[in-house]
């Protein structure tokens, strides 16, 4: 493969020639390999400063991988498709690592384009991988990996696209559309993760039953879902839809959140500039009428809204629209096919599921409890990544 080696591609780890073809899903050696990665991360003191690295470290432990495997027990005879090209986002440092694990667990060789920005998390993970690649018992795993960097180049992306059996493209509608213009093998499949927005659905009457500690924990979970990446993660809620009419509870929710925000969140001048600019441009873009609430720039809620919700999800940096619903059916008009995740509290998953099915909705691909917006699982964006990247070879 990759007959023409391009000098503009910088190889970080691995080499161009994948010696072996695809292999079975959840391969035993791969699970051992992932556990070694986990150990290295968790014992490396430099990783401790980065919660996202630690999360990944725990995530690829054997115990966790085996718990994922349970979901695949009904897939008896499956193996990879061949090689997968991973186009990872430039601004979520650990995303490439998860993508790599999905590629390996689904039995494939992997070409991974690393983010162009040099994140510490990426550098340290590469260092760990390099160290492991020198261990005799783990060496063979690196025949399945090629981690590269290259400056934005259509010709390289086109060349790599031609070589692989699958492409996983982590977002940006623009990038996805660009990659669709490159010729691929006829059977190459794509997993495009497009621009999406997400919301929260909370029953205010159920909040009423929480004691102070639990209320604060819920607010903390909501904070993690939203403020962690300045609300830029496509699974970060940008709106809260309230069920129930308990106004005191709603108010308390924002107060509890504000406490956490004041302790843990600080904008810099660049972000503050972007936030006020976004808010004003959003106002004029569609002549959106609303009233701003809370005298705190770090937590802005918009109420009395007459806005087009679709246009909202780009204000970010701690800005939420609030809607009150009489019942879940009123949510219907706010659901477009771009709606990805609903995080919920105080309402049963089944009720939300029935709502989606009953209304024959194209949007909503993830329904998870508040606090789990960022949980990267093999089912993402409505797609089972491991199932899709593998093929069945019999019943």
């Amino acid at each position: 493969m990759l007959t023409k080696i391009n000098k503009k591609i910088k190889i970080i780890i691995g080499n161009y020639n994948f010696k072996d073809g695809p292999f079975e899903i959840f391969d035993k050696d791969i699970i051992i390999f992932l556990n070694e990665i986990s150990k290295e991360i968790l014992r490396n003191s430099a990783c401790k400063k980065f919660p996202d690295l630690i999360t990944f470290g725990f995530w690829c432990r054997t115990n966790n991988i085996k718990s994922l495997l349970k979901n695949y027990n009904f897939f008896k005879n499956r193996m990879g498709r061949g090689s997968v090209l991973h186009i990872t986002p430039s601004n979520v440092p650990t995303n490439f690592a998860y993508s790599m694990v999905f590629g390996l667990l689904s039995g494939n060789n992997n070409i991974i384009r690393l983010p162009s920005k040099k994140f510490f998390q990426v550098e340290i993970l590469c260092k760990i991988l390099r160290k492991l690649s020198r261990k005799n018992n783990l060496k063979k795993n690196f025949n399945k990996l090629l981690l590269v960097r290259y400056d934005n180049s259509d010709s390289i992306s086109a060349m790599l696209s031609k070589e692989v059996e699958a492409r996983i493209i982590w977002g940006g509608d623009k990038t996805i559309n660009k990659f669709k213009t490159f010729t691929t093998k006829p059977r190459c499949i794509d997993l495009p993760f497009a621009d999406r927005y997400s919301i929260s659905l909370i029953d205010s009457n159920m909040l009423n039953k929480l004691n102070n500690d639990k209320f604060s924990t819920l607010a903390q979970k909501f904070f993690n879902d939203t403020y962690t990446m300045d609300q830029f993660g496509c699974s970060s809620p940008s709106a809260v839809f309230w069920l129930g009419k308990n106004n005191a509870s709603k108010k308390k929710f924002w107060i509890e959140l504000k406490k956490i925000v004041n302790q843990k969140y600080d904008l810099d001048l660049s972000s503050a500039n972007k936030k006020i600019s976004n808010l004003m441009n959003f106002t004029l873009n569609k002549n959106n009428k609303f009233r701003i609430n809370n005298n705190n720039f770090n937590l802005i809620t918009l109420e009395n809204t007459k806005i087009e919700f679709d246009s909202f999800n780009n204000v970010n940096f701690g800005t939420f629209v609030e809607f009150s619903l009489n019942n879940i059916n009123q949510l219907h008009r706010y659901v477009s096919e771009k709606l990805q995740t609903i995080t919920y509290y105080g309402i049963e998953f089944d009720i939300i599921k029935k709502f989606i099915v009953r209304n024959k909705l194209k949007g909503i691909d993830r329904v998870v409890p508040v606090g789990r917006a960022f949980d990267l699982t093999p089912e993402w964006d409505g797609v089972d990544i491991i199932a899709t990247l593998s093929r069945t070879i019999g019943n």
Partner: protein
Amino acid sequence: MLDYKKLFDLNSFSLPIKKKNKFFFFNIKRLSQFHYQHSSEYKLISNNLFKSISKIKKIADLPFLHVSLFKNFDLISKIKNEKISTFNSSGTTSNKKSKIHLDYKTAILQSKALGKIFSNIIDKDSDIFFLENKNFLSSKDAMSAKGAAIKGFGQLCKNKYFLLNKKNKLDLSILKKYIQKNKKFIIFGFTSSIWFNLIDEMKIKKIRLNKNQGIMIHGGGWKKMYKLRVTNTKFKNEVKNHLGLQKVYSYYGMMEQTGSVFPECEKGFFHCSLFSDILVRNSKLELCKFKEAGLIQTLSLLPVSYPGQNVLTEDIGIIHGIDNCKCGKLGKYFTVLGRVPDSELKGCSDVN
């Protein structure tokens, strides 16, 4: 509308802060109300994000517009039957240009204010050289920030000359005669234009002028200079070196608020005049303390045909004090540190 006659009768830099604040707040509030009534965009932003203007008692609470809105929208405050012409920012660093909708009245106010602000620097018998094309004032670009500046300065001086010929080539012949005769003169140009069209040209042609009685006034367009890492000091030194000038005065100003510029004093600080005020905000958009860096917000009493009287810029600056600058001018004085850097976007929708 405002009592502009009074505004131009008063001395621009000598009202003590209490009086200035009272005078300025009264007028800027009235101007805000005018724009609220005449610009639907300003009205919508005010309604959504700010207190009702009539209830506002502090200048910091008045509704402002973020400077990016001038690039993305047509912001006009239209009074019936007024002719408004539109011009674009000369800025070329960003893709989109600011669109300013200027009527005759606002253009005149801007020219007059500019003249007033520099009246104590400019000697009435001086002649002025513009770093501009000979035919500029008769071209369609004359109705612009640049045009307003040239007209404003022109009115203060005896004779006007242009340093670029019809073909936009540098022509220093008249200037050289002035220097031989040891006459007083002024050179005016936009900062980046002086750097690229004058200094760079002189370097290439290896021209250096003898020490002379000239002064330079320049402003606007620091964006390109920040990129080249040319500081104010470096700029001044190069200009003095090549042109032999006595003094170089810079000013800070927004193209959205032409006219009410903030001149630099000999101590190196920019000063508010009676036409203008400045606020600096921190990352919570609260007002900064003195000496604390934040986003610069500029206010001007001049824009009538567009709601540009209160603009949050993307520049970072520091207010150093009020009424106590060693140069003797009263009012707030400040420095500008540069543009706010692009924030690193987080999230998963940007691959390259």
